């Protein structure tokens, strides 16, 4: 796939995942969140090897099994059937979060409800009074994993900005996000705030700025 030559405006879910995969160094230990982040595993660049960690106790997670081969006792953090690759290992939750909280996982790819210009992430609760809070392992991941990549649509279904000056949803973690891949752009979190790294095909800087509720610094030309 040549991402930049596609005629469609913006990136698909698969394209966002592929772009994120390209930024993960060879040999990385990677934890993939539920949803679009799971697609990253399909796009490991040629010549690179990643080892996938799933927090429910498996290092060396492989792809979904063939239909009919599912084992209800071999699942990922999203509770979907997976496989184990050669060289895998099983362990209990205490040891699994030793890996996460102890800084042993290199990269985590997560979804987001909001990302602030200082890298705050909100992805577990709207804070609505009737919402049932459900945090899972997200707070441990952002606290313990060195590089947090976020894949997300640039705006909500109703068009509201997800990249904001300050999150008004309850935080998952403060100053934790490294880079965001949206359908419109790749944006770095820098000490100066959001900075454009790459525009999706057919998307203009002005359009991204308009859909971002915080200042967006332009691309630094080589």
């Amino acid at each position, binding site marked *: 796939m040549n991402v930049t030559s596609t005629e469609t405006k913006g990136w698909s879910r698969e394209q966002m995942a592929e772009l994120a995969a390209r930024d993960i160094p060879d040999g990385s230990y990677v934890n993939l969140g539920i949803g679009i982040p799971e697609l990253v595993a399909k796009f490991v660049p040629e010549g690179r090897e990643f080892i996938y960690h799933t927090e429910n106790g498996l290092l060396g997670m492989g792809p979904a099994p063939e239909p009919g081969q599912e084992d209800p006792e071999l699942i990922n953090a999203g*509770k979907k059937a997976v496989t184990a690759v050669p060289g895998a290992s099983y362990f209990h*939750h205490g040891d699994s979060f030793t890996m996460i909280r102890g800084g042993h996982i290199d990269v985590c790819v997560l979804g987001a409800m909001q990302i602030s210009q200082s890298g705050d992430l909100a992805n577990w609760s709207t804070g609505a009074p009737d919402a*049932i809070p459900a*945090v899972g392992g997200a707070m441990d991941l952002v*606290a313990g994993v060195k590089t947090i990549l976020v894949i997300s649509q640039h705006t909500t279904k109703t068009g509201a900005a997800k990249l904001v000056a300050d999150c008004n949803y309850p*935080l998952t973690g403060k100053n934790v996000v490294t880079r965001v891949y949206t359908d419109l752009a790749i944006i770095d979190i820098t000490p100066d705030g959001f900075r454009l790294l790459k525009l999706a095909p057919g998307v203009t800087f002005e359009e991204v700025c308009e859909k971002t509720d915080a200042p967006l610094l332009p691309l630094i030309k080589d």
Partner: protein
Amino acid sequence: MIDKRFDTVRSTVADIPDGAVVMVGGFGEAGSPIELIHALIDQGAKDLTIINNNTGNGEVGLAALIGNGQVRKMICSYPRSSHSKVFPELYRAGRIELEIVPQGTLAERIRAGGAGIPAFYTATTVDTPLAEGKEIRTIDGRDYVLEYGLKADFALIKCEQADRLGNLTYNKTARNFNPIMCTAATTTVVQARSLVEVGTLNPEHVITPNVFVDRIIEVTDPLIESRLIAEGITYP
């Protein structure tokens, strides 16, 4: 002769009293001791505090225990249920308490409870609403929150193989919270897919050493939660 085997599932949970704190192993359906949970439903203990990562699925197993009104409080990381309205409805009706704990902190609190560590510091939840009201300490320039160890009166555990002494192995990602919960309960009750002779398990491969186990019952062909749900089965 040390022999921790029980004759019936029912007898393994008969003495769980009203108000007990009960850890229930499993992550979703994987590693969930469904026969022990169903025996606890039959037994009828009330006002329980249940510690599990989730709140069950469908209307069997943990969801059925909750639905049966036996649970006063859930301590978990992810109470959104799959194919289940049991917990959300009770929660929104104010009929069940919820203590939400991040998954890694939940695991570490259980491990600490079993290891004689009454409290520890972690960076998880710092600067989030879940740290509100908790002690924050700065160590080497980073902020950490104080969390306390968790213990239980009983732990309900599912394992793969067990011997009469209580040595256990597990199956794949059904291991999850089970080994740490074995360490953190006064009485650890285990359902094993197979009972093996003492000496069968390689000492290098034992995951739960027998000191952490009190009661064992063989359940050779345990119910599979997702299949029950797919078939529309409910419990009791």
